[in-house]
């Protein structure tokens, strides 16, 4: 290893910043999964009959499925019967009506995470929904959003207040039979966020959900559904963290986006689940299904993700481009360090005429991390004039990590244009020394090079999150210089 490689290695070791546990009295169901558990969850949430039936259908199907193993991942066996499928901080009523009713310990937790829930203290213009283990504990700025006609609330609340929308759209993008983890989620999902933006409304602020896993031996199975009606616009952000524990914890979420005619959904993720320690002990298994459907003409769905945490990440935020002239975008930065593994990418399914998609993927591998880009661009016979551009870059730090790329392209319409560019590079000793010779400290130099590498993705993030993402990236790569 060269001098600077050693320097890089030594720079990557500050550790996870959000690994604390909140001591709070929780209502947690015993580990295990069967129809009774599913019924119990549904009952706790006072769900209508159709939803209970839907969950049971998902469970019955899931029991017939096999865990997928096609990804470029080493996954320790998961004992699905040892997981608790529901955990909620104990409250007097089912869900607080206002912040005043929220347990101060919970508010403190979010303060520590840098997600203050008090509206006055909030960054101007971001409404937050906070999901703690299985339930949503607070949603801010609801009144102001309601004035604009925007519905932004915990999923479980939407089940009660807008069952029409839930019944119509739930599972319409990610069907319960879609894949193993989506089926599991459909059976046991607990909470998440629900957004409905009415016709012609431009959502007056950024919407944000902060997911926190706290309880031991629980999984988090949130479900998010965003519907942008004709001509509307919404920008939604999610952040995630978890305590530092020696056990692996499962996070199997499903996110569905629906964009109708001329609607635009911008969905950004800054994922910082606990990645496990330097030896790969503990950490979150982040097995997530995210998909958006551009159902109307000129609809637009844009995914931006910055994945820095989790022991294993398995996710492919995708777009189904059904509406004529619709647009799908995927901008991704995925970082792995130490023993982390990521298999992530996207699927762009072109169905409508003149649909366009852009994929920009930046993978950063450090330590003994393994980073895989897996993407599918599928142009169906109906997608006359469809276009895709894919750019896929990997940056390696040190001699022990790996970068892998699996780009699949299926073109069934000869008028389509598909472009693919890929590169793999290392932080070179030359680049590092160049910056040192200009008086920049080694750590700053590495951050500068990595940020430069990720620039085309970071510029897609809303301003305040771009700053957070850069800081997270710097932390997750600490000691990774190599």
């Amino acid at each position: 290893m060269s001098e600077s490689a050693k320097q890089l290695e030594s720079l990557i070791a500050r550790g996870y910043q959000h690994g604390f546990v909140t001591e709070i009295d929780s209502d947690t169901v015993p580990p295990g999964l069967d129809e009774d558990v599913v019924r119990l969850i549904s009952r706790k949430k006072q769900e209508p009959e159709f939803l209970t039936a839907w969950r049971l259908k998902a469970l019955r199907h899931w029991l017939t499925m096999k865990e997928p193993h096609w990804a470029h991942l080493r996954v320790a066996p998961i004992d699905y019967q040892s997981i608790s499928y529901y955990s909620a901080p104990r409250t007097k009523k089912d869900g607080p009506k206002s912040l005043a009713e929220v347990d101060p310990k919970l508010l403190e937790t979010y303060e520590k995470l840098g997600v203050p829930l008090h509206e006055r203290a909030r960054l101007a213009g971001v409404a937050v929904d906070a999901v703690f283990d299985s339930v949503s504990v607070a949603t801010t700025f609801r009144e102001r959003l309601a004035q604009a006609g925007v519905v932004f609330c915990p999923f479980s609340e939407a089940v009660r207040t807008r069952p029409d929308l839930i019944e119509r759209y739930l599972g319409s993008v990610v069907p319960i039979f879609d894949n193993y983890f989506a089926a599991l989620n459909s059976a046991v999902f607990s909470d998440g966020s629900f957004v409905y933006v009415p016709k012609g409304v431009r959502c007056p602020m950024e919407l944000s959900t902060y997911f926190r896993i706290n309880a031991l031996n629980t999984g988090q199975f949130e479900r998010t559904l965003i519907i942008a009606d004709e001509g509307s616009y919404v920008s939604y952000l999610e952040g995630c963290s978890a305590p530092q524990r020696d056990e692996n914890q499962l996070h199997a979420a499903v996110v569905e986006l629906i964009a109708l005619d001329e609607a635009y959904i911008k969905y950004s993720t800054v994922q910082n689940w606990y990645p496990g320690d330097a030896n790969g002990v503990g950490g979150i298994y982040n097995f997530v299904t995210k998909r958006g459907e551009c159902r109307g003409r000129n609809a637009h769905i844009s995914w931006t993700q910055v994945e820095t945490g989790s022991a294993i990440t398995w996710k492919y935020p995708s777009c189904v481009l059904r509406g004529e002239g619709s647009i799908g975008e995927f901008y991704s930065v995925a970082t792995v360090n130490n023993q982390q593994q990521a298999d992530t990418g996207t699927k762009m399914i072109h169905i409508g005429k003149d649909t366009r998609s852009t994929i920009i993927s930046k993978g950063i591998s450090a330590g003994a991390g393994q980073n895989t880009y897996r993407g599918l661009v599928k142009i169906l016979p109906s997608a006359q004039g469809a276009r895709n551009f894919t750019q896929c870059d990997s940056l390696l730090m040190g001699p022990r990590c790996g970068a892998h790329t699996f780009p699949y392209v299926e073109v069934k319409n000869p008028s389509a244009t598909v472009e693919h560019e890929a590169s793999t590079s290392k932080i070179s000793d030359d680049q590092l020394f160049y910056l040192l010779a200009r008086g920049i400290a080694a750590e700053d130099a590495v951050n500068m090079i990595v940020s430069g590498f990720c620039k085309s993705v970071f510029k897609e993030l809303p301003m305040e999150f771009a700053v957070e993402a850069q800081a997270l990236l710097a932390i997750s790569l600490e000691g990774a210089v190599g």
Partner: protein
Amino acid sequence: MAAMLSIDNLHVSVGGKEILKGLTLAVQAGEVHAIMGPNGSGKSTLAHVLAGRPGYQISAGTVRYQGRDLLALPPEERAREGVFLGFQYPVEIPGVNNVYLLKAALNAQRKQRGLPEVDAFEFLGLVREKMKLMHIEDSFLSRGVNEGFSGGEKKRNEILQMVILEPRLAILDETDSGLDIDALKLVAAGVNTQRSPERSCVLVTHYQRLLEYVVPDFVHVLVRGRIAKSGDRGLALELERRGYDWVTGEAA
């Protein structure tokens, strides 16, 4: 007053092979020294060792910079203390904005000296002024460090960085190589603006061409890791006439 740079009996090897074999050189404040020599004589090694590039083994000798032990300082400290290396092959750093790097570099130096960070507006004014001097287009402001630059642009960018950072000791490693005559004149003009009684410059060059525009106070010929001959500008002219064989033969 201590010399700007004082190198005494410096021995340096790379991968077990000795490149510098007892080099001695003194540079006073205000002086411009040219280090010439055939390929492989150790010119670039000298430049890199002075800037602190890792990978060189220093087996003997001392280097003092304004009286301090230069070799004890990490590279970034040397830069902040006013040592500047103009690279022979400036590297591209995609996505890192030129101006961002320049500002970070200047602020690192100012912080070292206990000065406040430079005001963004003021800084941009300074950069624009110096860009004019170096005939660098406005588009430079939005580009990545050396990203997609031609060879000549990269060299001009090195000099631009130098005139903005105003180093006390500038070491230019073959900044003239691969430049056409117009670019060479620009580079020379940049170097000449830096000449002052407080500042020194070490020009590492293979050809005497640059020395027509930047007139050195001293010329040294480096042969097989040692200074074989020193003189004034006349030595460079004589080298051009007679070739390096003249000195290498004598030194053998």
